[in-house]
């Protein structure tokens, strides 16, 4: 059981800056994120796209913003729990008990939900028959590429993941690459390489087609694809891999007794507290009159929620507002010399 002053759910920009604010005022915190990397939507959806509305930063990409926030957090030793989804949240006396999908348990007076639009999950194949093979011979991510050695693998998708894996697996497996149109969104160099291998007969490239159904006895044996003219084609295959990007789902947050409005959590604008004492929501996931889904709003919301956490984490102390420019205590926490 990990005890901490505040637990942050979500390692996107808002979660990172909220951690900074907590540490600055002398509170401990740890961060959990369902993704296996830090940065949230910034890293998952637009790592290379420039953002133009971060105050005092005329232009930066999602990746640069994340790296800058991590740089800002450097003075503090923050523990991240990546690849874990918070599944359970229960109240025990005045404390919240939190449990993740990997079984990590926390006890904390404060939980800050900085969960964006929920947790990212892979988009799955839509034919119902796929379910029986999922996690066995129908996969949405690759943990051990050796399982494909000498097998036939049918890869679906037109982005970097699909094409990168098609190139990689074509060295050791027979690869079918199937995409719903004939343009790809992967990096041009990758697309060129795939086309080269397709011309050389090393990758079986099929465009303007999608999965119609799958069949097999116990394990996947055959897929049927359909093109834009409704013509179908059957392909023998040992594995089907789908890389259709990630979708965002509210997930277990919906079960925590919070006031929800569609996929957002209602909060007040003083503490960004939900209807449950000690649970806050900041960033894209929170909702209040006038809410703007901007990164800068998330920073403001996190700063105020952090101050609210102080009351519950240090009930016998009084919070004192200080500036980073002048406070000796804050400079000590940052590990910088005071004048």
């Amino acid at each position, binding site marked *: 059981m990990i005890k901490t002053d505040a637990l942050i759910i979500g390692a996107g920009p808002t979660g990172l800056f909220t951690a900074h604010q907590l540490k600055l005022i002398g509170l401990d915190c740890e961060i959990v994120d369902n993704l296996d990397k830090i940065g949230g939507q910034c890293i998952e959806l637009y790592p290379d796209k420039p953002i133009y509305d971060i105050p005092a930063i005329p232009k930066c990409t999602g990746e640069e913003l994340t790296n800058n926030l991590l740089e800002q957090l450097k003075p503090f030793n923050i523990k991240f729990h990546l690849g874990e989804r918070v599944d359970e949240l229960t109240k025990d006396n005045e404390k919240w008990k939190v449990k993740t999908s990997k079984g990590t348990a926390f006890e904390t007076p404060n939980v800050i939900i900085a969960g964006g639009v929920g947790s990212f999950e892979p*988009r799955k194949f*839509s034919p119902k028959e796929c379910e029986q093979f999922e996690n066995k011979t129908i996969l949405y991510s690759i943990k051990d590429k050796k399982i494909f050695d000498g097998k036939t693998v049918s890869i679906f998708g037109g982005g970097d993941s699909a094409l990168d894996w098609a190139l990689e697996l074509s060295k050791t497996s027979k690869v079918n690459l199937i*995409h719903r*149109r004939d343009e790809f*969104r992967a990096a041009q160099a990758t697309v060129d390489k795939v086309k080269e291998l397709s011309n050389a007969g090393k990758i079986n490239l099929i465009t303007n087609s*999608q999965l119609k159904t799958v069949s097999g006895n116990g394990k996947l044996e055959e897929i049927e694809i359909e093109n834009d003219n409704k013509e179908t084609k059957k392909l023998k295959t040992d594995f089907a891999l789908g890389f259709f990007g*990630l*979708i965002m789902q509210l997930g277990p947050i919906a079960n925590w007794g919070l006031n929800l409005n*569609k996929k957002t959590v209602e909060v007040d604008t003083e503490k960004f507290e939900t209807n449950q004492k000690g649970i806050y929501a900041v960033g894209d996931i929170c909702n209040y009159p006038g809410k703007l889904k901007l990164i800068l709003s998330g920073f403001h919301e996190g700063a105020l929620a952090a101050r609210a956490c102080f009351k519950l984490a240090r009930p016998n102390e009084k919070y004192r507002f200080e500036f980073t420019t002048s406070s000796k205590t804050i400079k000590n926490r940052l590990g910088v010399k005071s004048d």
Partner: protein
Amino acid sequence: MAKITYIENNGKSHTVEVAEGLTVMEGAVQNNIPGIDADCGGGMACATCHVYVKDEWFDKINKKSEGEDDMIDQAYEPKKSSRLSCQIQVSPEIDGLEVHLPGKQI
């Protein structure tokens, strides 16, 4: 104003008046039409305002935005007729537009 009809996957149809200058997505959200999630709020950063537009309307509405097809790749059951409704501008010329909603958005 333009009349826009949103037809849910179960066949239920909703016709509403949408002001010029809005998008078809905004028209759905403002009128609480089920089946359009619009998680990202119109930024073309998700694919949860996905609709199908039949041939007779497909060429009358504005063309796809740059990058729209990349997002549609990530939608639920994309088809040739797929569009993101946040990229369809409402104007008097599209008065009477019908869009069909997919089985689900996520």
